């Protein structure tokens, strides 16, 4: 599984990354997490409001911090 966290480095983006990693630890799902901070790459996903989370190429949430339950459902848990 491939997870990308899109964000320019603002506090909300960091919080999002932390939450995703926490959920991965809790559920034991193995996934590659990558933080994307480059604005041009972020725009390629069609995302204008950060933070955003992309799971396997699909944009799951835009413009706000996800809830833990949301993240779990994206992981199929």
């Amino acid at each position, binding site marked *: 599984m491939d997870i990308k966290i899109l964000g*320019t*480095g*603002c*506090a*909300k983006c960091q919080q999002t990354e932390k939450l995703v990693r926490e959920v991965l630890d809790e559920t034991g799902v193995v996934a590659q997490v990558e933080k994307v901070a480059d*604005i*041009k790459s*972020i*725009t*390629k*996903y*069609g*995302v*204008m*409001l*950060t933070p*955003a989370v992309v799971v396997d190429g699909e*944009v799951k*949430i*835009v*413009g*706000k911090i996800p809830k833990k339950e949301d993240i779990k459902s994206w992981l199929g848990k």
Partner: protein
Amino acid sequence: MKERTKLGIIIAVFLGAYYIPWNHPTVRQAGLEAFLMLQDYARLHVLTCLIPAFFIAGAISVFVSQASVLKYFGAQANRILSYSVASVSGTILAVCSCTVLPLFAGIYTRGAGIGPATAFLYSGPAINVLAIILTGRVLGWQLGVARAVGAVSFAVITGLLMALIFRKDDADRTNGSFVLPDEEDRSRRLWQDTVYMLTMVLILIFAAWAKPAPDATGLWPFIFSIKWYIVIALFILLGVILKSWFSREELKNWVNATWWFMKQIFPLLVGGVLVAGFLLGRPGYPALIPESYIQVLVGGNSLWANLFASVAGAFMYFATLTEVPILQGLLGTGMGQGPALALLLAGPALSLPSMIVIGSVMGLKKTAVFCAIIIVLSTAAGMIFGWIMG
């Protein structure tokens, strides 16, 4: 933060502690001014202005649908609408300056193009609700209004000029759609949201109602004498609204968003106030930088003073809201009203770091033209405002 940056900071603090002549009377005075200015903010602005403003900003970010605004920036959107929405949507989209750049890049490369994108880039940081409220409160309502009006009208002018100058070259644009945030189910009607926001704005206005002049008569002193009763009544109204129209979940989100803004902005603002107090002092009190320097550079309303303020503002980086205490210090040490507006109009929209990011998105040439347009417009606005304020 990189380890090397941390080491750099520690060395800088050490050298400062070691070499700055803290015992010198001027430095002592400046240090004292820094904390006196901080106390001024704590006493005058935090409870009645900043805290209500944070709650309003939090409410906007949670309850105003961003999707409904973003759709006006799509590639197929009506041009006139795009420009109008771009020039005012900073109020609700850009409370945090870090959201402006991705939005700008998105509008530029996938959406409505360079005109609306630069219009948004320019107006966004300048007209967010916190900035306007604090500018009006601390620097006077004239500057607050001039800032809002200037930012909106120049956004449109800048956008149109950019679109005109670069009408041929719209290369490297990927056509595609945006991923919009989900439209949430609305349990309230628009008028209910409006009443809710309005109640908070009224609390802000009445809590901050200024003390009238001793010989004033009429409505102003009357409202002042009963202002706390009005505020309490409004708070009761707000309580009723929150209880009957909002779910617990929504209230939690609102408080969380407010807390986010406070956490992000308060430390920066405290730092900004301390630095401004240390360098410039409160109005009427000298600090580190002698008043004569400020008056020579940005005093009066000459073309040179306005141009200097615009250029300095364009390159300097202001963390959210810190432009306000810095300008307060500058105005207190002899800066003219015109140059102050020029700095407010050129400052928050541009900085050296943001220029670099903008440059990576739309290239050196367009970025240079964009900056030049803003500097020229800000200088002109400063001259006109300075002349009106006479």
